[in-house]
Every structure is written in structure tokens, then in C-alpha cells.
């Protein structure tokens, strides 16, 4: 298997954590000039494997060969010295320092061994940036550049240290579709220059776009390594999940009824006092899913907060099933028939230290049958939890298990069980599949369509365009706090992608 083109080889890597075999005799090899994708669901063992390669963990068993030579990597420093660079999902940059300062950090060129040679640093960064087409200003402060550019700084940081093996951990999770395309362009340039890239992801379409070879891992084991030619999304999904997966949501044509959620000329300010939502009006009728597409930070969060009562609207009206709920407390809005799957399930959706039974009671703990005259009935909480957990197929724990012990997918199922289980007339789903794996995404999508078919009005906010397109009956495009475009069920990712950047504004105004 190994030839002179192989720059890296992992043989039989095994890593045991308490209760979990994270890596079970995984083999992996990387050739010069290729992008090799490591594909798997959350918790499949991808990150563990890469952390071993980067010297953060020691394997219990197995061997690492870099350029044919067996090595022991005890720290990231060892890895860097062997030419291995890693770009983490969460960037490790110092916002108040410049791009160049960040890049040379801990490796500063000096004059007379003491003084920082700013010019030399600048020159080297400029050179690197130019030779790989990065288009980055070395003197800009990191906090002032876009997320996509910050990621390029991370890549430059690795190149600056003479890395020729680059590990990218879920690099597109934080990028817009356009930024992702730019990243892919950069990766192609890098591999042309003889660099090798390991691309960790759980997104199938990206793998088929950028990877030369694909290794699929599931539950700590390598399932297979395949070439991109001949690989299909369906086949990869099957390998990842271990069973057939429906990638496209099947849904009957919608049959909308009366408007259940009406938003009228809503204005909302954000935490900094800036107007984040500027006069938005729309309605969602029973039996339809309305999707809101947009780049993160264009007022979607503030819109949802204002509808759910978590934030005061400056002006405008919100009504649920014909009843005005503008300015009402969150508890009142919930009782008027609103279900809300929040953007961040760990920050908002769940009290991680509460049991599942307690989490499922988060809205109704203060009413019979959960409680009476301030007296809580834990047995009733457990009884209801047991029903809901079965109904929503939550695995990995019972009513008494703490929410923190569940996997992300099962945590989201608990949130869904609570929000849909209350039988709301309006359901707001914000980023309902963020960070979930293919199997869990399928489940969430099915439940949302089911809610729609049961006559609920569903408002879906998502940064994933394919999710918006496959679920929505109508799509609204948000840009800088306004609706800049509206579409029916047939819309393409390209159209939305362009409108999301504000180019569609004039069209909508017409």
C-alpha cells in the first residue's frame, strides 16, 4: 500500500477512553498532493484520530509513519517539527493582534536574538500569502477580518511553520457557501504545490467536491477507503450510518390553511442597540413550512427572540392564532401555542445538569398535572418523560439520566419531544440540525414535515441552504434585517446564495 508517494501512514491506531473505544485499529494513509477526506458522524472517532496525529493524545496501540519513518508524537510541537499542521474548528487566534503577529506567534523572527523583527515577519507572511493566492493583509487586526479570512490565517500559520501535511477539522462549519468555495480553491492550489490535506467532515456534498480519496469511519472503526470517482452521496451515507438513509425529505404538496403566525412591521434592536430587524412582515399558515435563509447575524436571531418574547420589539405586532402576543412574557407566548426549538440546544434548549424528565417539564412544570399549588410531582414528570422518550426514539438514557450524558442528536430529540409534544399551533425551528449527524438530521426533518402535515405553522431558520430548500414550502431571504426576496418551493441554492449577500435587494424592492 505504501509507496514513495505516501507521506503519512497510520497503522492500527487504537485509543480507549473510559467506556468508549474511540479508535479501533484504524489504518489511514495520505499521499503527496491529495485531499483525503475523513468522513464520519459526530463521535465516530475522527477528531480523536487527528488529535493523535497532532500529538495531543497518545495512542494505546499502533504506529505512525511520517515519510516512511516511524515517529512518536508527544506534543503538537513534535507534530509541527514533522511538518504536520492543524486548523481547528475553533480558531486559535488572538483578536487584538495583527495577522502577521498571529502567524509568527511563538516562532517570531528576531534581530540579535531579542528584538522582534517585524519587517521580516511581514515579508514572509506577504510572500506566503502571495504564492498561494490568499489575499490577506498582514497588518490587519484579526478581529477586523471575516471568519473566512481568519481561517486562511490559521492555514498560513501552519504553512509558516513549513507544514506540508495539513489537517482541517470541519473547516466549512463556520463558512458561507461562497467562502467554502474559496477555501476549496485554496486547497486545490495547495495540493498542486505538493501539499497534502486531511479534510475532516460529516458533510457528503463537500467530500464529493474536494476529496481525492475518502475514508469513512463509524464507531471508531475504519469502514472503507474509496476514490471519489464512483462514490455517491447515498453510498457514503450508508457507510457512515450503517443503514439506508433518506437524504431528500419526502413530503406531499402542502395544503396551507389559516395564518397562525403573523408578524407585522416588526422592528427589533440587538444587544448593541443597533436595529437588527427593520420592518419585517410575513405570515406563516397552518400546514406550511416557511424557511428563512440568510447569512448568520442578519437579524434572524433577534427576529425569533422578539416573536418568542425573549426580547422586546421596538415596534410592530406579533400574533399567534389571531391573538396578539406582542411584548408578552415568554411563558405567555408559550402558553398561547408556540413551540420553539432554539438555536443553541446546550445554551438554551436544555438545562444540561437537569434530568431528562426535568428538561421535558421546562414549560409545564408550573401547571397540573406536573404540579399543583406549587407542589411538584416528580413521578408525573417521569411518567410523561417515559412516554415522550419512547415516542421520539431518544436513546442513551431514561427519564432520570442527565441531559449532558446524551449525544447531540439525542439531546435535540429531547428538545423536539418537548416542543412538539406540547401540541403547539406554531413551531419555530432555529438551526434545528446544527452539529447533528446524518441519521439525526433525517429524524429531525421527518418530524418537522410531520408537524406541518398535522396543520402546524412551521417557521424554519437555517444557515444550511440545502435544508431550507428541501424543507420549505416558501422561502424568505434575510439580509441586514430585511426580507429581500421570497420564493416558492422551487428555488436553487445559487439564487439564494446570491440574494443572501444583498444582491437581490433591488429585485425584491421592485
Amino acid at each position: 500500500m505504501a509507496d514513495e508517494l505516501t507521506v503519512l501512514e497510520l497503522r492500527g491506531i487504537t485509543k480507549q477512553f473510559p467506556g468508549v473505544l474511540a479508535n479501533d485499529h484504524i489504518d489511514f494513509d495520505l499521499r503527496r498532493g491529495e485531499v483525503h477526506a475523513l468522513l464520519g458522524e459526530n463521535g465516530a472517532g475522527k477528531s480523536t484520530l487527528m488529535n493523535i496525529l497532532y500529538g495531543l493524545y497518545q495512542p494505546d496501540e499502533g504506529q505512525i509513519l511520517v515519510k516512511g519513518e516511524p515517529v512518536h508524537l508527544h506534543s503538537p510541537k513534535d507534530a509541527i517539527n514533522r511538518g504536520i499542521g492543524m486548523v481547528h474548528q475553533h480558531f486559535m487566534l488572538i483578536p487584538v493582534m495583527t495577522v502577521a503577529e498571529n502567524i509568527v506567534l511563538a516562532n517570531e523572527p528576531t534581530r540579535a536574538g531579542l528584538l522582534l523583527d517585524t519587517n521580516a515577519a511581514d515579508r514572509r507572511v506577504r510572500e506566503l500569502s502571495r504564492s498561494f493566492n490568499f489575499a490577506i493583509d498582514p497588518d490587519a487586526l484579526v478581529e477586523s477580518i471575516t471568519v473566512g479570512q481568519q481561517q486562511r490565517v490559521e492555514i498560513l500559520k501552519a504553512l509558516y511553520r513549513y507544514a506540508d501535511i495539513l489537517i482541517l477539522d470541519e473547516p466549512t462549519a463556520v463558512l458561507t457557501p461562497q467562502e467554502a468555495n474559496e477555501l476549496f480553491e485554496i486547497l486545490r492550489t495547495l495540493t498542486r504545490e505538493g501539499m497534502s490535506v486531511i479534510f475532516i467532515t460529516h458533510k457528503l456534498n463537500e467530500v464529493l467536491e474536494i476529496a481525492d480519496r475518502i475514508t469513512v469511519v463509524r464507531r471508531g472503526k475504519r469502514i472503507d477507503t474509496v476514490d471519489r470517482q464512483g462514490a455517491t452521496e447515498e453510498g457514503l451515507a450508508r457507510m457512515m450510518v450503517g443503514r439506508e438513509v433518506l437524504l431528500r425529505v419526502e413530503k406531499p404538496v402542502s395544503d396551507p390553511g389559516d395564518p397562525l403566525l403573523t408578524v407585522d412591521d416588526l422592528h427589533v434592536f440587538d444587544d448593541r442597540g443597533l436595529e437588527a430587524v427593520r420592518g419585517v412582515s410575513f405570515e406563516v399558515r397552518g400546514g406550511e413550512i416557511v424557511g428563512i435563509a440568510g447569512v448568520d447575524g442578519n437579524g434572524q436571531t433577534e427576529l425569533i427572540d422578539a416573536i418568542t418574547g425573549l426580547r422586546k420589539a421596538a415596534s410592530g405586532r406579533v400574533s399567534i392564532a389571531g391573538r396578539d402576543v406582542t411584548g408578552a412574557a415568554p411563558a405567555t407566548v408559550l402558553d398561547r401555542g408556540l413551540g420553539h426549538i432554539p438555536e443553541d440546544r446546550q445554551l438554551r434548549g436544555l438545562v444540561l445538569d437537569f434530568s431528562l424528565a426535568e428538561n421535558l417539564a421546562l414549560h409545564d412544570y408550573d401547571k397540573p398535572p406536573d404540579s399543583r399549588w406549587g407542589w411538584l410531582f416528580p413521578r408525573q414528570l417521569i411518567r410523561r418523560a417515559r412516554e415522550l422518550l419512547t415516542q421520539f426514539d431518544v436513546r442513551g438514557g431514561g427519564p432520570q439520566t442527565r441531559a449532558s450524558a446524551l449525544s447531540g442528536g439525542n439531546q435535540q430529540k429531547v428538545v423536539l419531544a418537548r416542543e412538539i409534544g406540547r401540541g403547539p399551533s406554531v413551531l419555530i425551528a432555529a438551526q434545528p440540525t446544527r452539529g447533528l449527524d446524518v441519521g439525526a438530521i433525517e429524524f429531525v426533518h421527518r418530524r418537522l414535515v410531520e408537524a406541518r402535515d398535522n396543520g402546524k405553522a412551521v417557521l424554519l431558520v437555517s444557515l444550511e441552504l440545502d435544508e431550507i430548500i428541501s424543507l420549505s414550502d416558501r422561502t424568505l431571504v434575510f439580509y441586514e434585517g430585511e426580507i429581500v426576496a421570497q420564493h416558492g418551493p422551487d428555488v436553487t441554492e445559487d439564487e439564494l446564495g446570491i440574494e443572501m449577500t444583498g444582491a437581490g435587494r433591488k429585485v425584491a424592492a421592485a
Partner: protein
Amino acid sequence: MSGLSGEPPDMTGQTPEVSEPTPESKVPSVAARLALWQRSGGVITPILTALIAFLIGGLVVFATTGKDPVHTYKAIFKGTGLSWLSPVSIHWHLFYPAGIHWTGWDTTSPTALNLQQTLIVVTPLILTGLAVAFAFRCGLFNIGGNGQYTVGALVAVQFGVWFAGLPGPLHVIVAMLAATLAGAAWGGIAGFLKAATGAHEVITTIMLNWIALWVGSYLVGFNGPMQDPRAVSAPVTRPIADSAHLHVFWGNPLLQGLHVGFFIAVAMLFVYWIVLNRTTLGYEVRAVGFNAEAARYGGISVGRNFFLAMAISGAFAGLAGSIDILGWEFNLDLTVVQTVQIGFIGIAVALLGRNSAIGIFFSALLFGALLTGTSTRNLDPSVFQPQLAGNLTRIIQGLVVLFVGADLLIIYLWQARKKLRLPQRKAAEQA
């Protein structure tokens, strides 16, 4: 442990779920071990914390005075009267017991008197411990136990002096209730400020402590409105009426016997657990304490719970103040107002007791015993100077607070020990 602890009882009994087990890994045994570790960790870390604190305290004793620490601790223990609880006396010869004698329960022995003293001190410590713990469960750090205690004591004295005509139990109840409400109001101010303006409770409770101290000093001090007009030479309040005295159920009422306030404190441990785990209020408080943002999203008013949690905390501390007044002090003098520490020791009690009802009971017992055992009255001065021993109590108290903060360190060391053992075992298996 889980039955009474403030934690929801789900964690201990449950094996923690690991994401999909692989067939090769022996999941049940590993998970079971993990559960055992978590269960034992819950009890072991506080015990370890206390032991290390005592160890370092002993080293300090040895280094600074050259006295035998074991001997000193023995003398302190003797002064606590806790040995009364096991009515046998064991004579040690080197490392094995040479003789065991049944001594029986002599309810009038000096040991019994010492134990009464210890429990009288334990009583308010339980309550100020609860005052800190309840706020903790709502995510708040109540440093104001001392001020709330003082306010409670002041109100209890005044109500004990007034209403002298009331029948006994009624007078006690009225005075206690008034003091509890006063403590609740004092704590509630900090909670209200937090809810309304976001003012940090650590700052406001510390300030309220000083306000309570100086208002109390004015009221009780010379020519203050509460000073006893007959005691011209001493800054002290009038004594409360006999009808406001708590009933002494063990020992001589004239020699500070143990009063029924002890049972009230123990009952409050149950109240604490029930309010937290069996009421919607407790549900809200815990939700806010664990994750205020999720609580708000769930429809819970976070500000209202900040206020209520601080008010209930203050109520516990105010009750503590009233029990000390009605149980054994009977009046309040200026030095007590200015030097009382009960509220601050409550912080150590709550931290060491891990905010659980049963934990608070035992850590209150520990600190109460330390305070009594090192007091001038109970420690044999030929073994160790009580003045120095009092500082030893403070050292141990400080170390406990320090170590509880370093909980993670202890857990880390615990795990590191396991990691070190793992390769050895593997080597042994291969051999």
C-alpha cells in the same frame, strides 16, 4: 447519600450512558466502575479535603510550636464532647487497643456538657450553611450571611423584650418569625438589586454586612435606642423575657444546656431539601442556577428567582440569629455584633457540604466541634494554648475553602493515579 442530598438523585444510581458501545469494549464493567467512581467521588472529595486541611493544620502546629499535632488534635477532640456518643473508652497501646471499657451514657458528665456546647454552636452553623447553599443553588454567592444573621438577632432581641405578656411558645414563635422575615428582607435587598440593576450580589451582600454591623452597633451601643438603661456601663440590650426562652431539653438551663433550636435547624435541612426538590419554586431556582438562559427560554422569570433565592437564604440566616438569642444568649452585646463570624463560617460549611442537606449537617458538625474544641473553656491549656488553637480553626476553615475551589485538582490527581496504573496492568497482562 442521594436521599437527602440537594443534588437531584438521578446521577448516582444511573450508569452514565456512553455513545453506542462497541462490541469489543466491556461496557458494563467500565460504566459500572465509572458510576462507582462518581458516587464515591461525591463523598470522598469532601472527606479528602477535610483530611488534607487537618494534616496541613497539624504541620503548622508542629512547625510553629513544636507540639505533637496528634496530641493536640486529641485534646481538641476531647473538648468537643463527641466521644460521649460512643459510650466506650478504649486504651491504646501502640497500634492496637489494649482495653475497652463500657462507660455508659452519663448525661451529666463533663463530656456531656462539652457535647451540649458543640451542638449549640452547630445549630446556627447549619442554618448559615443553608443560607449560603440555597443561594448557591440559584447560582448566587451569598456572602451576606453575617449581616442577615445580625439583623435576625437584633429583631429577635427586640421582640423578646417586647410582648413580655405573651404565653411562652407563642412569644418564641412571634420573635422567631419576625427575625426570619427581617433576615429575608436583608437578603432580599441584594436579590432585588441583582434582578433590577444587575448589581453583583457579592458586592451588595458585603456592603449589607457592614450596614448591619454599624446599624447594630448604633442600636446596641452606648445611649443607643436598644441599650439596657439599667446597664449604664455596658453596651448591651435588655435581656429578653423568660417567655421567649427556647426550651432546654438536655442539661441545665442555667449552664447553657442544649435547647430545642437544634431540632429546628435539623428540620430546616429537610425543609431545604423539600423546597429544592419537591416544589415548583425549587425547580425554578435550580433551573436558574444551572442555566439561567435556558430557564428564561423556558418561561421562568430569572429576576424573580434571584430575589426569592436571596430572601430565602436570608431567612435561614435570620432564623440562626434568633435561635442564638432565644436559645442561650438572651441579650445582645456590642462585641457580639462586631465580632460575630457565624455567617462567614457558613460559607465553608456550605462548600464542604457540597450544598447538600446531609453534607451541610456533617460539615456544620465538623466546624462546630472545631470551634468548641478549641475554645478557652474546653481545651486543656497544658496541651495547647486555646488562643493559638482558635487560629488553628481559622486555618483549617481557610484551607477548606481553598481546597474546595481546588476540587478539580483532587479529581485530576485521582484520575492521574488511574492512568498511571493502566499501563502497569497492561504490562502485567502481557507478561
